[in-house]
């Protein structure tokens, strides 16, 4: 044991770091700072919402009026509006985005996939107010016949019929808002899933192909399992954007306060974010607290949904990790 020690003592200079590792330390410090900034920002938002919104939960009944008497009564229709529009958006956008991503990553030849990917990315560059204008003044009218058709076709069905009740004559419905939201969240879901799909190890894809899998079978055996976590991330980011989107919903939806299952109704509850955008200018301090409190509710629910999705993914991955 003494010999190696003696050797080190003989030539101590050889073991010291020659370049001092300053670059390493700067970089690791910068990376740590960036990571902490995110956490600090998130904590800051949370503390703000809590501090400003805490009193919003229990104001005198008049503040919540004219359509509600308590915070719960105020926020519940908004929550329903938020989630209905977002869920409609996800139902439309997710299969479409996965399909487009697969075409770009695995089906289309190179000369086609690059322009398609570019066009989809361009969709993300369109400001949401433009989508709002387009949805409110163009798409809504065009969708009136579809609303009528949905009501005529499915209106009489059990369960499903409840979703397609008496149709709106203007088309400015939750369904239209959901469709506009779907177009808005399409690029982000497509871009992320495209990226994870194309990262599937070639080795796994070839293993499936060599067993005599068709392209679709290969995708199911290798691409989807490999990409599952990324696909959920993409959907969560899309959902986050849909939940928080204000302009499109504010402009498209004709706001009402009656809760109903009818997604093609003349008027429907708006979303939390759109409600904040509509009302914050009223500048009543009490109402402002209530609006912040609804923001807090949205913040917490988004967190919950995200955690739940992560947990589902994590569970299946833990199961395979011995």
């Amino acid at each position: 044991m003494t010999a190696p020690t003696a050797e080190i003592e003989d030539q101590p200079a050889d073991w010291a770091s020659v370049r001092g590792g300053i670059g390493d330390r700067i970089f690791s410090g910068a990376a740590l700072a960036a990571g902490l900034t995110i956490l600090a920002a998130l904590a800051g938002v949370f503390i703000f919402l809590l501090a400003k919104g805490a009193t919003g939960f229990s104001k005198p009944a008049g503040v919540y009026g004219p359509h509600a008497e308590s915070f719960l009564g105020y926020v519940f229709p908004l929550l329903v509006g938020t989630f209905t529009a977002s869920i409609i958006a996800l139902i439309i956008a997710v299969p479409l985005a996965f399909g487009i991503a697969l075409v770009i990553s695995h089906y289309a030849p190179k000369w086609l996939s690059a322009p398609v990917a570019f066009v989809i990315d361009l969709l993300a560059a369109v400001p949401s107010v433009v989508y709002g204008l387009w949805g409110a003044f163009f798409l809504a009218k065009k969708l009136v016949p579809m609303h009528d058709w949905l009501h005529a076709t499915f209106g009489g069905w059990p369960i499903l019929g409840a979703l397609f009740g008496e149709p709106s004559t203007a088309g400015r419905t939750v369904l239209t808002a959901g469709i506009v939201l779907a177009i808005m969240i399409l690029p982000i879901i497509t871009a992320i899933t495209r990226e994870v799909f194309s990262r599937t190890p070639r080795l796994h894809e070839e293993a499936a192909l060599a067993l005599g899998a068709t392209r679709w079978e290969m995708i199911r055996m290798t691409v989807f399992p490999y990409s599952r976590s990324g696909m959920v991330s993409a959907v969560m980011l899309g959902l986050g954007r849909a939940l928080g989107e204000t302009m499109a919903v504010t402009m498209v939806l004709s706001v009402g306060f009656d809760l109903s299952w009818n997604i093609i109704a003349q008027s429907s509850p708006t979303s939390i974010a759109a409600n904040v955008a509509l009302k914050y200018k009223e500048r009543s301090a009490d109402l402002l607290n209530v609006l912040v409190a609804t923001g807090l509710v949205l913040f917490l629910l988004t967190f919950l949904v995200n955690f739940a999705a992560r947990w589902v993914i994590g569970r299946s991955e833990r199961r395979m990790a011995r």
Partner: protein
Amino acid sequence: MSKSIDVSDVNIYYGDFLAVQGVNMSIRAGAVTAFIGPSGCGKSTFLRSLNRMHEVIPGARVEGKIVVDGQDLYGPGVDPVAVRRQVGMVFQRPNPFPTMSIYDNVLAGLKLNAGKLKKSEADAVVEKSLRGANLWNEVKDRLNKPGMGLSGGQQQRLCIARAIAVEPQVLLMDEPCSALDPISTSAIEDLIHELKDEFTIVIVTHNMQQAARVSDDTGFFNLKATGEPGHLVEFNPTKKMFANPDDPSTEAYISGRFG
């Protein structure tokens, strides 16, 4: 069950680049045929053309005839998917499906072909294939554990079990031992000896001792010159190839005086 392969005038391209030129050979049924040659000479490319895996790469294509069991693999109307179900393949690096258990890995190919299997049938196939790959005794108590949890050599034998579970006529092996330690390599070589009774085996190897140990016939591939396409220099029984090759460049390569 095993079938011979007749290759005539095969040219293999990557886009416009001719990678392998003018290959003719007759691969015997129920024998082990090894391809040797320096890196980049096209032996793996040629191997992959035997089950139409070459064309998976965009722009890649094959000209000529490769006949298995009287059927030209590149004939009109031949489905590459059907070809790959008859001609199995084991890759250089072990590639069990990471999200599947050992059990499901073995059955992966079979489920594609046969759809739903009865539990008893599936169990029988898994045991037979894993025994065939000399892996049964090592994994029989943990069939539901992930395939990725095995050692590299075990993973490669799992891949062989997966390939033979669909009972192909031909088994292609692309440097199956190059990522493995000597003990695992020896286990795979023993396995190749046992499998050749049932399957026609074609193996690419960089290890000339391995070619000499496991194969009955050997093909030597080489580049005509730098930048020229690869071609088959010599195809002979392995004994003759290593004792008294026809071509001087074969002798130079085998004896290590190459390049």
